[in-house]
C-alpha cells in the first residue's frame, strides 16, 4: 500500500486535532499559527494524494483495518482528490485573509473560537467527501452543521443569532430527512457501505422501487436544504449576509459543495444510474436547478445590500450544479463538478472583496457604493473579475463552466434548455455590472473621492489575488481540469 493512501485520514485527523488544540493556548497568535499550519500541511498532503490517485487510480482505504461490509472505508478517486485540493486551497486562502480581517468583526475572546470552528468545519466537510459509509457521512454532516452555524454566530450580533438559529433549524431538518433516508436504505439492504448497498439495491430493484423512490426523495430534499437547492434556500441569504466575510466565503464556497458531492455519490454510487434513470427524481432536480438559475438571479437583482446580492447569486450558481446533475449524463456531471470549482474560487473571492469594501467604507448598500472604484481600485478589480466570471466573460472560469453546460445540454439532446443557461448569464450581468460600472465610472460619483483612500494594503489582498488567479487559470486552461474530471467520473460509479 503506497504511503499516500493514508493521507486523507491524516488530513481529517490533523484538522480535528488542531481544532481542539487551539483553545488550549488561549492566544490569538497561537490559534492562527496552529490553524494555518494545519491547513497548510493538509493542503500539501491533499496535492500528494491527488497526484498519487492520478498515477495509480482510485483506491479504498480501510480506516479501522476491517474489511468493507463491517469496517468504515474511504473511497478516494480523482474527484475526491480534486475536491480535497479545492477545499484546502480555498480554506487556506480564507484563513490567510482572516488574519487581517477577522478582528474587525469579532471580539478578542472569540477569535480563537473562530479558528477552532473553521478547522472543525473543513475537516468534517472533507470527511463527507472522502467517506464511503453512509452513516459516517451523516455524522460528518452533523459536525459540519454545528460548525457552520458556529462560524455564523461567532459574530455576536442580533442578526447573526437569528440567522444562525434559522440555519440550524433548517439544516437539522435536512439531516433528519437524510437520516430517515439512510434508515430506509439500511432496512432494504442491511449495509451502510456504498458499493455494498449498490450491489444489493440493483439485485432487488424492481420489487422495491417505491421504497427506493422515497429514500432518494428524502436524500434529495435533505441534502437540497443543506446545499440551497432553489425553493429550499430560505436560510441562505440571512446566514451568508450577516456572517463575517471570511465565514461567508467558506460557507458559500465549501459548505454547500460538500453536500452536493455527497448527493452525487448517493445518486451514482449508492443507487446508480440504472435505478435513478428509471425514477423521475433527476428530472425534478433538473427542473429545480433551472428554476433556481433564473429565480436566484432575479432575487439577486432586487437586493440592495451588496453581500445579500452575492448571497442570492449563490442560489443561482448552485442551480447550475443541480442542473448539471439533473441532466443525468456524464458530461452534465462533469460540468456540474467543474461549476463547483468555478463557484468555489469565484464566490469566495467575491465575498472576501465585498466584505473588504463593507469593512473599509462602512457602507453596505449598493446605492452608496458609487465611486468606490477610486477609493479601493484593487479590491473592486477583484470583485470585477469575480463578477465577470459569473457572467461568463471568456478567459475566466465562469465562461468555461457555462460552455461545458451548453455542450452537456446539446449532447443530451435537450437544446431548449440552452435558453435557461443564456438567460441566467444575462441576468447575472444585470446585477454585477451596475456595481462595477458605478464603482469605476461616472463624474458625479467619483467627485470628492480620494484615490486609494480606503484601500487595504496590497499585502492583505494577496490571498484574494490567489483565488482570482485560480479563476483566471481555470478560465485560460479549463480543458485540463475538465479532462481530469471526466477521467475521474468512471471511478465514482
Amino acid at each position: 500500500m503506497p504511503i499516500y493512501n493514508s493521507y486523507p485520514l491524516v488530513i481529517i485527523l490533523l484538522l480535528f486535532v488542531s481544532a481542539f488544540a487551539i483553545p488550549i493556548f488561549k492566544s490569538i497568535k497561537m490559534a492562527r499559527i496552529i490553524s494555518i499550519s494545519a491547513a497548510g500541511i493538509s493542503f500539501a498532503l491533499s496535492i500528494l494524494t491527488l497526484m498519487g490517485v492520478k498515477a495509480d487510480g482510485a483506491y479504498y482505504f480501510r480506516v479501522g483495518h476491517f474489511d468493507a461490509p463491517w469496517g468504515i472505508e474511504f473511497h478516494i478517486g480523482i474527484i475526491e482528490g480534486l475536491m480535497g485540493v479545492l477545499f484546502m486551497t480555498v480554506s487556506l486562502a480564507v484563513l490567510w485573509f482572516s488574519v487581517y480581517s477577522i478582528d474587525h468583526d469579532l471580539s478578542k475572546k472569540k477569535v480563537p473560537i473562530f479558528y477552532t470552528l473553521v478547522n472543525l468545519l473543513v475537516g468534517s466537510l472533507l470527511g463527507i467527501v472522502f467517506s464511503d459509509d453512509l452513516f459516517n457521512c451523516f455524522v460528518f454532516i452533523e459536525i459540519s452543521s454545528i460548525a457552520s452555524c458556529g462560524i455564523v454566530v461567532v459574530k455576536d450580533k442580533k442578526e447573526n443569532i437569528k440567522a444562525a438559529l434559522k440555519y440550524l433549524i433548517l439544516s437539522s431538518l435536512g439531516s433528519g430527512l437524510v437520516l430517515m433516508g439512510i434508515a430506509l436504505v439500511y432496512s432494504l439492504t442491511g449495509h451502510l457501505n456504498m458499493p455494498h448497498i449498490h450491489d444489493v439495491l440493483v439485485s432487488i430493484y424492481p420489487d422495491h422501487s417505491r421504497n427506493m423512490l422515497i429514500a432518494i426523495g428524502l436524500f434529495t430534499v435533505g441534502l437540497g436544504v443543506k446545499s440551497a437547492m432553489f425553493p429550499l434556500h430560505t436560510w441562505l441569504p440571512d446566514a451568508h449576509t450577516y456572517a463575517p466575510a471570511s465565514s461567508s466565503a467558506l460557507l458559500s464556497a465549501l459548505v454547500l459543495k460538500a453536500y452536493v458531492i455527497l448527493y452525487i455519490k448517493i445518486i451514482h454510487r449508492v443507487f446508480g444510474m440504472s435505478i435513478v434513470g428509471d425514477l423521475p427524481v433527476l428530472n425534478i432536480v433538473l427542473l429545480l436547478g433551472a428554476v433556481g438559475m433564473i429565480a436566484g438571479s432575479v432575487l439577486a437583482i432586487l437586493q440592495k445590500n451588496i453581500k445579500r446580492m452575492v448571497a442570492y447569486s449563490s442560489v443561482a450558481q448552485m442551480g447550475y450544479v443541480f442542473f448539471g446533475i439533473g441532466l443525468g449524463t456524464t458530461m452534465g456531471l462533469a460540468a456540474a463538478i467543474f461549476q463547483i470549482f468555478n463557484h468555489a474560487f469565484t464566490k469566495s473571492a467575491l465575498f472576501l472583496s465585498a466584505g473588504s469594501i463593507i469593512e473599509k467604507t462602512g457602507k453596505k448598500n449598493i446605492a452608496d457604493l458609487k465611486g468606490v472604484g477610486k477609493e479601493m481600485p484593487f479590491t473592486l478589480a477583484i470583485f470585477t473579475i469575480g463578477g465577470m466570471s459569473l457572467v461568463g466573460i471568456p478567459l475566466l472560469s465562469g465562461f468555461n463552466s457555462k460552455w461545458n453546460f451548453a455542450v452537456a445540454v446539446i449532447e443530451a439532446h435537450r437544446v431548449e434548455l440552452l435558453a435557461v443557461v443564456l438567460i441566467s448569464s444575462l441576468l447575472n450581468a444585470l446585477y454585477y455590472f451596475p456595481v462595477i460600472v458605478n464603482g469605476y465610472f461616472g463624474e458625479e460619483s467619483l467627485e470628492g473621492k480620494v484615490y486609494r483612500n480606503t484601500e487595504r494594503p496590497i499585502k492583505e489582498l494577496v490571498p484574494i489575488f490567489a483565488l482570482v488567479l485560480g479563476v483566471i487559470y481555470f478560465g485560460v486552461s479549463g480543458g485540463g481540469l475538465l479532462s481530469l474530471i471526466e477521467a475521474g467520473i468512471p471511478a465514482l460509479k
Partner: protein
Amino acid sequence: MEHLLANYYETGAIILFGVGFVTLLAHGNLIKKIIGMNIMDTAVFLFFIAKGYIAGNEAPIIRSVKSASGYVNPVPTALMLTGIVVAVSITAFALALTIRVYEKYGTVDLNEIIKMGGE
C-alpha cells in the same frame, strides 16, 4: 392496512416522524420547533432499532457461546447511540441559541422576530 398493522413499529415511527416534521415547520415558537426536531430524530431512532430487532432473540451481550442467530442485530443499536449523541448536541446548541435570541429580541417566536426585521 394489514401491512401497516403487521409493521406497527415502522408505522408508529413514520407517524412520529410526520408529527415532528410538521411541528418543526409549522410552529413559530422556537422551543416547540426544537421539541419537533427531537420527536423527528426519535422517530428515526425507533425505526432503526425496530429494524434490528428480531423477535425472541437476546440482546447481543455474549455470556455463553451461542450461535450468532440467537442475538438481535447490534449494528442499528450502535448506530443510534451515535445518533442520540448527535441529536443531543444539536439540541443543546439550538437551546443555547434560543436563550441568546430571547436576550436580544425579548421573544422566542420566530415569526415575531422575522417581523421585527434586521438592522
